[in-house]
């Protein structure tokens, strides 16, 4: 009987493909859009995740997310170092500065100033040069994507390739000379601005003078101390906000959820995908069942139970659901693969597969339910109507 159910479904090519297309569309939208959303959200705290060494971030209590810089006085660093359980604490400068390119154009960059002695807070991976090269005069390390894109210069000849920055090139930061000594590979930030690393003292020279220049204090808990206890102790002792890496990522994530329209925009897209997919697949599936009512009536008249008909319809819904889901997820993966080297934010974690799977299951359940209702209520005597 299951074979009959499948043959009935596949025999009506137009409707069969229509249902699959609807489900594929829904599955695609329910994975592709959230994947871009997750990609964007991960970029929002990529600066935190890129810094592996410190496990405590200390900042002004009013800071709402990682780019919301409320500078501290340098003396706060010594107060944090004095808290029991802190193995070490280092300063970090983070600010936006305009870089003047060799061709005279300006580009806003994220300038990160690392502790002069230890260079704690440096980039996650060097592509060219060494982190220690930052100790050379006027040295900066630039993230490779920024060097290739926003900090590159227009082609010398029309239609030619853009001229990328290379080691030894110079920039101007607030009228100060900066020499490129290396390139790093960073996770893109949400605004995809180039990231320039330098030392803390040099960053303070690059930046316009202010009374407070210290953006964050990066700290490490002593090995015999619990991270939670040390962060609590720093907060209680200094009056500053101290977060573990995960906590600070959460603070940034929540800020995005609450204060930007990004989640709503993506939520609307996903909802529309779900509704349109449900409408197409549900309506087509229902129409398929309605057109086959006589066939279901014949089966009923011959002695097929409602329970068997229900299982036949569920099998049909499951089959189209699995094919539609597979195609949608496959297309999303293909999209991600095609966009892997572009600026597009895209991250496809396992839980999006689950999310989309649940969405497609709901659509199929809805489609099957309205069809089953019709078939269950069908009088088998309908077979005698000509």
């Amino acid at each position: 009987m299951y074979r009959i159910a499948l043959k009935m479904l596949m025999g009506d090519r137009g409707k069969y493909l229509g249902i699959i297309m609807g489900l594929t569309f829904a599955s695609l939208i329910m994975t592709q859009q959230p994947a871009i959303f997750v990609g964007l959200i991960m970029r929002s705290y990529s600066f935190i995740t890129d810094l592996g060494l410190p496990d405590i971030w200390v900042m002004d209590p009013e800071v709402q997310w990682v780019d919301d810089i409320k500078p501290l006085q340098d003396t706060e660093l010594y107060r944090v170092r004095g808290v029991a359980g802190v193995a070490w604490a280092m300063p970090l400068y983070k600010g936006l500065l305009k870089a003047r390119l060799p061709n005279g154009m300006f580009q806003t960059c994220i300038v990160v100033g690392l502790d002069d002695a230890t260079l704690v807070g440096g980039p996650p991976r060097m592509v060219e040069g060494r982190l220690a090269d930052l100790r050379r005069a006027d040295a900066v390390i630039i993230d490779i994507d920024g060097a290739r894109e926003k900090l590159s210069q227009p082609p010398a000849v029309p239609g030619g390739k853009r001229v990328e920055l290379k080691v030894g090139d110079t920039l101007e930061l607030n009228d100060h000379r900066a020499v490129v000594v290396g390139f790093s590979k960073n996770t893109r930030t949400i605004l995809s601005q180039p990231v320039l690393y330098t030392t803390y003292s040099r960053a303070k020279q690059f930046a316009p003078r202010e009374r407070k220049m210290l953006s964050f204090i990066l700290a490490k808990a002593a090995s015999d101390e619990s991270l939670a206890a040390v962060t609590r102790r720093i907060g209680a002792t200094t009056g500053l906000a101290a977060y573990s890496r995960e906590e600070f990522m959460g603070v940034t994530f929540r800020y995005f959820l609450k204060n930007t329209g990004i989640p709503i925009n993506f939520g609307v897209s996903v909802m529309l995908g779900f509704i349109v997919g449900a409408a197409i697949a549900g309506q087509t599936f229902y129409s398929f069942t309605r057109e086959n009512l006589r066939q279901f009536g014949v089966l009923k008249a011959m002695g097929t139970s409602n329970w068997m008909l229900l299982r036949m319809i569920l099998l049909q819904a499951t089959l189209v659901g699995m094919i539609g889901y597979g195609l949608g997820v496959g297309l999303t993966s293909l999209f991600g693969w095609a966009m892997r080297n572009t600026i597009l934010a895209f991250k496809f974690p396992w839980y999006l597969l689950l999310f989309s799977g649940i969405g497609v299951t709901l659509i199929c359940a809805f489609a099957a339910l309205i069809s089953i209702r019709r078939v269950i209520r069908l009088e088998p005597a309908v077979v005698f109507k000509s």
Partner: protein
Amino acid sequence: MAADQDLAVSCRGLLKTYGTGEAMVTALQGVDLDVRQGELMMLVGPSGCGKTTLISVMAGILDQSEGDCRVFGQDLMHLRNHAKLAFRARNIGFVFQAYNLLPTLTAAENVTVPLLINGVGRKEALKKAEQVLEQVGLGTRTRSLPSQLSGGQQQRVAIARAIIHEPRLIVCDEPTSALDHETGHKVMELLKGIAMGRDRTLVIVTHDARIFEFADRIAEMDDGRVTRVVTNSSQLH
């Protein structure tokens, strides 16, 4: 009158109404009719006289509002649903005016349906379907889809489907009305020959006077009642 054990169908005071209140329509109003085992009984009468409602009740796919209908001694209306389904699956075969073959299944697959409903395995059912199709003269068309068959061939597939599980009662609704005279005649010969070969009972609803000659008895209906039962079509005129 035949003894009860010789009766395939026994209807007493059958009443069937549709709707309620002012919209109520009475399709059967006190039908008394016996159909003997092994008999080919035809139900004739004008449109709307209740013929189709009567065979629907006999086949157990419609419950009467009042009265008693026993099929091989079984009171179908008072059977539990699953028992009624099982009874229908084992004992009743159907032949419809519009054939009602599943359009996406081949002729052989269509014929297997009653066996599959009765739990027979697919391979075995297909093997038997091919044998039965051979019997109805369609041995070479087992893999054809209904759309690739003529009306007469489709009806022969429907007949094969109606007899494959060897039911004791076959109900046919206008089996020849969509066919030309010659094909209709052949179909009736087939029905009479194959279906009756094993002492099966046939109840055929028809308007087609050309096939009356195949009937053992003819029950004439009018306005929801059986008005008379004759053994020869000439007695109708």
